[in-house]
C-alpha cells in the first residue's frame, strides 16, 4: 500500500526557507508569487491490512519521528 505524509510548519512559525525562496523568485522575475512556505512529504510504502491499520501506523511514525509537533503539523493521505 502506498501513502503520503505531508508535514508543514505551523502558522506563525518563521520559515526562513520560504522567505529565502520568495526573495530568489523575485530576483528571477517570477512574478505574482506572494508567499512561499516550505514543507516536507514522505512517500511511504507499507504493509497494512486496511486503510485504518495504515493510518494508525503512519500516525505513529509521525508522532514518533516524522513531525516535530512543537513547530509542525502533519497530515496523512492514503489514496
Amino acid at each position, binding site marked *: 500500500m502506498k501513502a503520503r505524509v505531508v508535514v508543514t510548519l505551523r502558522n*506563525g*512559525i*518563521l*520559515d*526562513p526557507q520560504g*522567505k*529565502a525562496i520568495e*526573495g530568489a523568485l523575485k530576483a528571477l522575475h517570477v512574478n505574482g508569487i506572494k508567499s512561499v512556505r516550505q514543507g516536507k512529504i514522505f512517500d511511504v510504502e507499507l504493509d497494512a491490512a486496511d486503510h485504518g491499520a495504515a493510518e494508525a501506523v503512519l500516525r505513529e511514525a509521525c508522532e514518533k519521528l516524522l513531525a*516535530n509537533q*512543537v*513547530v509542525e503539523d502533519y497530515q496523512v493521505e492514503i489514496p
Partner: protein
Amino acid sequence: MSSHSEKPPITPELVASHGLKPDEYEKILALIGRIPTFTELGIFSAMWNEHCSYKSSRLHLRGLPTRAPWVIQGPGENAGVIDIGDGEACVFKMESHNHPSYIEPFQGAATGVGGILRDVFTMGARPVACLNLLRFGAPEHPKTRHLVAGVVAGIGSYGNSFGVPTVGGATAFHKGYDGNILVNAMAVGIARSDEIFYAKATGVGNPIVYLGSKTGRDGIHGATMASASFEEDAEAKRPTVQVGDPFTEKLLLEACLELMRTGAVIAIQDMGAAGLTSSAVEMGAKGDLGVELDLDALPCRETGMSAYEMLLSESQERMLMVLDPAKEEEAKAAFVKWGLDFAIVGKTTDTLRFVVKHGGEVKADLPIKQLGDAAPLYDRPHVSSAARERIDPARIEPPISNAEALLRLIATPDLCSKRWVYEQYDHLILGNSVQTPGGDAAVIRLGDGPKGLALTTDVTPRYCEADPFEGGKQAVAEAWRNLTAVGALPRAVTDNLNFGNPEKPEIMGQFVDCLKGIGEACRALDFPIVSGNVSLYNESSGKAIPPTPSIGGVGVLSDVGRTATIAFKRPGEQIFLIGT
C-alpha cells in the same frame, strides 16, 4: 491615555500570569500612580522578571571582581571587552538557552548561538570563535538521545552557516538534568580597542532604527518563561518557538560592521530576550534620554499584531540602533546592499519617558529610568549547604581493581571522546584553529599571528553540589589551568550561573556560596569577570539541577607557534606530574 481602552482588564490573575508578585504590582502602582495598561503590564513583566532584572542575583554579583588594567568594559553591556594589546580588543560573553532547548532542542540551541553572536557583534567585534557548555540528563533517560541530537545539530547548523568556528566546549550527563538540560553558548570576537560600540543613546531627536528580520509572534513571553520553572505541563503551555535564520544573521553582521565603519551608529543594541522593550529602554536609560516608539512603522511578519505583541516578541536576528541623522543615507545604502528590513521606528527625547504609540493611540507612557533602576532587588534568604562528612580513603575497600575501574571510567559518556559532538561543528573555518576540540583549551590565531587566544569552558557541578564555595573556586581554577596548559596567559572570565529556584533558601545558598568561591578564585588569580548571565529556576517538578556555574575563560598567547598540546608525542618520553 485611558487605561480602560485596552483589553483584557488588569486583574490579579492577569498580574500573576505575568510573573509579577502582588507586592511587585503594588510597586508598579506606586511608581506610575495609576493602573497600568495591558501593554504597560507586559513591559513591566518583561523588565522586572528575573532574566532582565537579575532581581535575585544582582546583590551578590556585586561582590565579583570585574576590574583589571586590561578590562575595557566589564559586566553591564552586551558583552565584556578586554585589551589584548596591539590596539586590539577581545569581546566575549556566555549565555544560556536552557528552557527553549528543552522544548525544541534544534531551534532552542540554534537561537542560543544566534543570540550570543549578536551580543558580540553589536559591540563592533567580528566573531572569531564559539564555544558551548552542555549538560544533559542520564544517557538512558528516554528523552536524552533526542535532546543531544537536536542540540548538537542546532548549535552546528547556526555556527556553521554563520561562518564562525565552534572550537570548544564541554558535554556531560547527569540524571539531575533529566527534565532541565543546560545549553550555554559562548561567543568571542575581535575589535579595534578604540572602536567599541555601546548601547548608550546620545542626542535628542535622533532616529531610532530597526534592522533585521521582521517581527512575528515568536517567543512572546519567552523571557518570562525562561524564569519560570518547569511544571509537568510545561510542554502544553509553550509559546511560539523562535526559529533561527543564520543566513539573515550573517547579513546582519556584515551590514552592522559596514554601518559602524561609516560613523553613523550612535548606539546599538540587539533585540534579545524581551525584544524591543528591553533594547529600547536600555538605550534610553543608559543615555539619560527618553524614547518614543511608533509601532505603526515596525516591520511585521504577521498581520494584526498588537503593541503588546510587538513589544514582547522575541523574533530573532533583529537590532535596534540610534543613528546620526546626518549619515542616514549612508546607513540606508548598507541596509539595502545586504537586503535587510529596516525602518525608523522612533526617536530619542528629553522627557526620560518610554512612550509607545500604535494606531494613533498611546499604548504606554512610563518613566524610562525606573523601568530598570526601580526593578525589585531581593536579598533572598539563603542557607549554606551542610558540610559533607569527610571520607577517609584508607577506610574504603576498592570494589574493583584499578585497571577495571579505569576501563569503566573511560567508557562513561562523560569521559569518552566527544568527537561525535564536535565533528558536527565546523571548527576549522577561518583557517586559524591551532588547537581544535579535544584538548584542554582551544587555541586560535588572530589574523596572521603570531598572537592568539586560548578559550575554554568548564565547571564540575558535582563539586559545587558537595561544597558550593570550593566548587565555585574549582571551576575558575580549572578554566585557569586549561588556559595555562596550552601556554596562554589567562586574562578574563565570562560566566553563566545555572541554578534552581532562588526562592528556596538552600538553592539561594548554593548560589551565594558558589559566587563567593568564584569571586575569591578570580581575585586570587587576577582573572576578572567581564560578562556573564544568570539562569535561575532550572527545576523540573520541583527538583533543582545540580548547581552549575559555567566558567568561560579567555587567555592570550603572544605566539601561537609556542603552544603545548595534549597528546603524547613519541614513545620513551618521561612523564611529569606537577601540582599537589
